[in-house]
């Protein structure tokens, strides 16, 4: 493996040989076809039949050189004479020989090394094309060198056309494969060739019998295929990990939490007795734990970009989007077949309406009434909740023209659908045919059109029995408090204004009119705007008006509402329409629902009409119409369901490869194909393509069951390998990223695992499934720091009032696009504006600050120290209040193991030293403010003004125990615990 790079690219002579060989091969194919047409006899080609040199040259130019010129040069050195750069045109042999403004010819026939063009495309001296992205590959450079060397032949246009036509009749040659698609914007794109290895994801799955001709049992196939590859690389597998490592690995992988010390010891005992039985029982226990869905749901929410707010200018809350979050968690826990999971997220509302309509025998008009009323049963409600998927992208229409806002939404849907379910990046295809993959821009607009009747709405959808509706009352009371305050403060200012307005009318001897009534009066007939208000009051008024609106809207959190979509031909949005999105058919005018290609992605450049449809290169039809196999009916309803059905068609290889690859990635740290969102030619190729196909087939055979896939993976020896390897040095040199899985990859905890594990260690973690988002205590400076939204400052972040609510799992934490929890953000919680296929784990310095210095970490250390001291006092005999014993408990709770004698000794000494330190260094009490003064620079005044905001949650707040409330002994023990939370051992999974 070490030598592959250099040998693969030893010299350009190798490439030249390759080109020549390929030309001969090409000629052979052409010859063969001619022969076949003539006689169908000869199958051998002897030397005499090889084409003449001139023919080789003509082909080289037409099929290799000219396409490079067209793709890379013509933009600046062709076309419009006035616009030619450097007075150099590449459109004819004469002009190439003549050269550009320098006066020298661009090429010297027969001598590439003396040719200016060659040095330019090599970026030696002049650099052409000038952009890194456009730069020629070594193969392309050698091709042009070869062309110059053989005399720069340039056949006539007619001859070129003939060669092209001959070539287009050959599906596969050494230049690659033609792929049939719905067609690009140019023939050159439509007829271009792809390397087979770049097309891997589009090719049908190989069957199990092709993949497993020897009939190896299912439970050995992973190890078989992994070992086969390892043997080729001449590596051996690592030994099995220890029992303690295995249970930690499995528990984190399936639940995102560490095992307890007791669970570890118990497993060690069982493992020693019967390792196989212990292991499979462990996996079953973990898979049936409700913690499983919370963890794997979190993975899915990374991909789909969950957040409780809409981002952009206003960062509006998407109240009740938690219902989608819980739907995802439920689906993983119940092992919902993945094909159903996909259909529900893309078209759950359509499923619900079909069901409702059939159940109640409704006309379309009656159905639309029921839609608004939300007369759905439990199953139908669940389906609609699932379409929260279609509401996850950042979106706002503030200061954006309606058609553009609509385009942003639909583009987002196309893009996220491609990435999530098909592992295809479709955003680039919005403007042009795909540069690398067989996806024409037409297909982008077909999918765009499949979403063309999808309208956003918060819909009336009954709550489910299974949905957690705890704390609705308390939280509603809180929101009402905030709302009442905003109203009172606003009214105070309005009073001042209207008192002044009355005076003005009196002075002008006019009858008083309210603000609304006088709005359209001429300026001289009404008091000036904001009459009687100073600039502070003007600024405050705007803040209060915004607050009133925000809190009023948040009252809807407690209504049976779901963030969803509905179908309609079109809709009209108010300038602030994103505030409230409802089913509203009255305001819709019947515009056209047909789609069009938008040339270059520009709304103004309307190109040819397209039907709704799917990706043609997959070659799985979405329609029975043989004339238009990859289209979908353009009726208003049912487009998304048809799209979803195509996605989960058993013959669609993208979908199953995509999901099994994701599952594999979360187990091993890296996917079989390393870019789970991009299976295109520029994504990483699968390291074990056969394994990927095997798993995809098996996945369908097991009823699209993700839990079955976990079992298959985790029961393999490959999964159980140690992170240690006997031949580590050479392994690291040859396979530094462990792509061949000669050992298990060590991984850092993700942000949620880290926070949840700390809470589990301190005993504070509270398990409760679903419901309203919780507000953990985040860094108070950030919580109270002003955050701009349109016209105002967003209300301050107020944590949940009790530890029981705050200390639930991180997946339930309120996620605000404009205000990330700084702790989670530091540990690489992804920005929810982009789909996250894989978490970053890079170590940056501020992580050290957060883990050592933050209030939350210091509080956790106090919490566990207090827990240990309390337990320690309850013990009897010499154990009672013994420091070494306390250290031992700290190790058990945090690292889930016994300390070594040396560790116990050393850390006891450290704690002993810290006791007198803390006796002489008092901690400061923490004060939680019940109101804050905030300041904003007002655009009306350009000056800062202040206003007060209440924080009622802190009036009756159950704070964590703080350092100033505990003994020096407790603080010293907390110092030890804090260190253990900071160790690599705690943060990494072996």
């Amino acid at each position, binding site marked *: 493996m070490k030598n*592959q*790079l250099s040998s693969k690219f030893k010299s350009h002579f190798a490439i030249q040989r390759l080109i020549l060989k390929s030309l001969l091969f090409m000629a052979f194919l052409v010859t063969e076809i001619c022969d076949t047409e003539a006689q169908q006899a000869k199958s051998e080609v002897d030397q005499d039949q090889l084409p003449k040199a001139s023919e080789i040259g003509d082909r080289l130019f037409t099929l290799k050189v000219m396409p490079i010129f067209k793709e890379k040069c013509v933009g600046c050195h062709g076309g419009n004479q006035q616009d030619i750069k450097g007075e150099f045109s590449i459109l004819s042999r004469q002009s190439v020989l003549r050269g550009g403004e320098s006066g020298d010819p661009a090429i010297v026939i027969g001598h590439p090394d003396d040719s200016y063009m060659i040095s330019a495309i090599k970026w030696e001296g002049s650099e052409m094309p*000038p952009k*890194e*992205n456009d730069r020629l*590959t070594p*193969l392309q450079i050698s091709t042009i060198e070869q062309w110059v060397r053989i005399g720069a032949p340039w056949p006539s246009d007619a001859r070129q056309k003939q060669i092209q036509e001959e070539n287009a009749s050959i599906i596969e040659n050494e230049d690659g494969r033609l792929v049939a698609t719905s067609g690009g914007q140019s023939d050159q794109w439509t007829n271009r060739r792809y390397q087979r290895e770049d097309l891997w994801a589009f090719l049908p799955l190989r069957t199990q019998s092709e993949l497993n001709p020897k009939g190896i049992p299912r439970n050995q196939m992973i190890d078989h295929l992994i070992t086969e590859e390892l043997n080729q690389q001449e590596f051996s597998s690592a030994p099995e990990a220890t029992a303690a490592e295995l249970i930690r690995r499995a528990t984190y992988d399936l639940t995102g939490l560490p095992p307890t010390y007791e669970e570890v010891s118990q497993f060690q005992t069982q493992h020693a007795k019967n390792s196989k039985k212990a292991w499979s029982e462990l996996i079953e226990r973990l898979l049936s734990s409700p913690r499983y869905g919370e963890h794997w749901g979190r993975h899915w929410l990374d991909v789909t970009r969950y957040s409780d707010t809409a981002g952009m200018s206003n960062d509006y809350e998407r109240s009740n989007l938690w219902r989608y979050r819980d739907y995802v968690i439920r689906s993983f826990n119940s092992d919902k077949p993945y094909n159903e999971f996909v259909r529900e997220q893309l078209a759950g509302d359509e499923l619900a309406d079909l069901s409702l309509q059939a159940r109640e025998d409704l006309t379309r008009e009656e159905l639309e009434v029921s839609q608004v009323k939300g007369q759905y049963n439990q199953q139908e409600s669940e389906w609609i909740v699932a379409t929260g998927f279609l509401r996850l992208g950042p979106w706002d229409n*503030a*200061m*954006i023209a309606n058609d553009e806002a609509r385009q942003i939404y639909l583009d987002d849907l196309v893009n996220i659908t491609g990435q999530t379910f098909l592992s295809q990046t479709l955003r680039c295809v919005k403007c042009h045919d795909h540069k690398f993959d067989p996806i024409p821009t037409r297909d982008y607009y077909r999918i765009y059109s499949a979403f063309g009747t999808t309208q956003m709405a918060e819909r009336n959808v009954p709550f489910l029995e299974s949905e957690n509706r705890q704390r609705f009352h308390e939280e509603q009371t809180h929101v009402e408090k905030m709302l009442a305050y905003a109203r009172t403060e606003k009214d105070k200012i309005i009073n001042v204004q209207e008192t002044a307005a009355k005076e003005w009318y009196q002075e002008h001897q006019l009858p008083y009119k309210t603000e609304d009534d006088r709005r*359209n*009066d001429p300026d001289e007939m*009404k008091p000036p*705007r904001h009459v009687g208000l100073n*600039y502070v009051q003007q600024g405050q008024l705007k803040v209060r008006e915004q607050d009133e609106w925000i809190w009023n809207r948040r009252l809807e959190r407690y209504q049976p509402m779901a963030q969803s979509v509905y179908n309609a031909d079109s809709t009209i949005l108010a300038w602030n329409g994103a505030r409230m999105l409802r089913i509203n058919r009255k305001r819709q005018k019947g515009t056209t629902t047909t789609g069009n290609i938008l040339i270059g992605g520009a709304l103004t450049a309307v190109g040819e009409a397209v039907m709704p449809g799917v990706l043609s290169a997959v070659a799985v039809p979405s329609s029975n119409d043989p004339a238009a196999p990859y289209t979908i009916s353009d009726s208003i309803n049912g487009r998304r369901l048809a799209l979803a059905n195509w996605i989960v068609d058993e013959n669609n290889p993208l979908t199953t490869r995509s999901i099994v690859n994701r599952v594999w990635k979360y187990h091993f740290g890296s996917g079989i194909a*390393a870019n789970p969102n*991009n299976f295109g030619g520029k994504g*990483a190729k699968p*390291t074990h393509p056969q394994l990927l196909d095997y798993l995809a087939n098996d996945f369908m055979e097991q009823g699209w069951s993700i839990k079955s896939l976990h079992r298959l993976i985790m029961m393999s020896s490959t999964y159980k390998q140690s*992170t*240690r390897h006997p031949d*580590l040095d050479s392994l690291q040199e040859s396979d530094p*990223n462990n*792509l061949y899985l000669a050992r298990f990859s060590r991984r*850092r905890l993700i942000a949620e695992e880290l926070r949840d594990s700390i809470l589990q260690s301190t005993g504070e973690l509270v398990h409760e499934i679903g419901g309203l988002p919780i507000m953990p205590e985040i*860094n108070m400076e*950030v919580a109270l*720091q002003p955050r701009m939204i349109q016209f105002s400052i967003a209300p301050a972040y107020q944590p949940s009032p009790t530890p029981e609510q705050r200390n639930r799992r991180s997946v339930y934490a309120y996620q605000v696009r404009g205000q990330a929890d700084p702790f989670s953000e530091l540990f690489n919680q992804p920005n929810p*504006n982009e789909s996250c296929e894989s978490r*970053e*784990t890079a*170590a*940056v*310095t*501020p992580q*050290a*600050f*957060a883990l*050592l210095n933050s209030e939350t970490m*210091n509080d956790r250390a106090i919490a566990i120290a207090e827990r240990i001291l309390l337990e320690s006092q309850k013990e009897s005999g010499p154990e009672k209040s013994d420091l070494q014993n306390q250290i031992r408990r700290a190790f058990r709770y945090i690292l889930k193991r016994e300390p*070594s004698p040396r*560790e116990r000794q*050393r850390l006891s000494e*450290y704690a002993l030293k*810290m006791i007198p330190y803390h006796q002489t*260094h008092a901690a*400061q009490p923490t004060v939680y403010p019940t109101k804050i003064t905030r300041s904003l*620079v007002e*655009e*009306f*005044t*350009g*000056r800062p003004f202040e206003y007060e905001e209440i924080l009622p949650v802190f009036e009756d707040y159950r704070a964590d125990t703080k350092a*100033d409330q505990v003994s020096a002994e407790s*603080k010293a023990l907390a110092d030890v615990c804090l*260190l*253990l939370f900071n*160790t*690599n*051992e705690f943060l990494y999974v072996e």
Partner: protein
Amino acid sequence: MLHPSRRQVLYGLGSTLGTVAFSSMVQAEENANPLAQKQPMHPAKAKNVIMLFMEGGPGQMDTFDPKPELTKRHKQESKLTGGLETGFKFFVGSPFSFRKVGDNGIEMCDQWQHLADPFVANELCNYRGCQAESLNHPEALFHMNTGSRLGGDPSLGAWANYGLGTVNQNLPGYVVMTELAMPQGGSTNWSNGFLPPGYQGTRLRPQGSPILDLSPPSHKDHLHQRAALDELAWLNQQHMQSIGEQDKKLMARMENYELAFRMQSEIPSVIDLASESESTIDMYGMNAPETQVFGRQCLMARRLVENGVRFVQIFSGGWDSHDYLERGHSARIKSVDKPLAGLLRDLKQRGLLDDTLVIWTGEFGRTPDNNKRGGVYSLGRGHNNQAMTMLLAGGGVRPGVVGATDEFGATAVEKVHPIRDLHVTLLHLLGLNDNKLTYFHGGRFKQLSQFGGEVIHELIS
């Protein structure tokens, strides 16, 4: 003979093996210190950047680009189509008068007092040809800061550090200062995007701890911290031995604790202004309430640059004058006038201006007209993506006026360039070539300008 870099070879091959090996190299490269100093690609005119971001969009015709035609037509109906306002629109004349200052033709409204001093005004370049794309704040902010309207791509400061690294390893290479309130779009404006996390802007907070959790709780002193770190290092070494591997990721974490410890003392000393003279404090306007905040940030910017920080950015909001233009812009100009003049003077006197590029800009400009608000003629301006104004100084910039807008200031008409060309020019001044400063992500080599741009040569001396 071609000597391609490893990256180029692999990109070119595009084979299975190539891609596999390629991703491993990317990761291996990421393990090295991302902020280590790197050589520029061509001789650089600027080493550091201080970018003063006027959030909300200053009006070009109310700051540096006088439009007497608007004064003539004040409150007359406007039929211009730019901006988002619809319905009846009327022209708004600037409430300020203008004069030429210094020797290079720079024009300023009368609200600029300190900046008008020829000692600093002669350093200024006023560029009037830039055009934004978006009409709304966060998208336009993202565009000016990251080259992409969508947000999520690496910011200018991240690219600069990616290209050049930073001088002082005990300080972040990219520092951002905001007012108490975060600008719209928040930290996405100084994001590392797809570049490694080390290139993200570090926000020095205006109140409280300058960097979140920079210091331990008050009852833990420096010695306590040192003792704790020694114990932690011992525990981590024990662990490293037990796993039998010098894992680079784990070692990087261990090193981070030591770096954090050094930063804990270095950062407070950089931001502690006690060593600055009273006249310096006054020069930045720190003694007056309206200039205190921005003045302090400007002075901090100079100290950061002096101490080897590559890129400093200050956000100052409140420029979004849809109404009450005179009050609004007057107050905003006053709040930045003295500090900006002070910063330029200070940099110049210390010889730092030659290789420090200072940029003053908003995310877009403003319209020459407005519509009625609350039923009355509101004297303000809408958002304008066709014309804006900006100042550049130092760092190889040619003083003077470059480009022009039409008679209303509605559209740029001379030396017109999109934001990407400005970005390419800024990188160029730093010795970086946008077309070569690329990062392989999502299937292609990405660059700040997205798809390439031109250097605006008129801006360069």
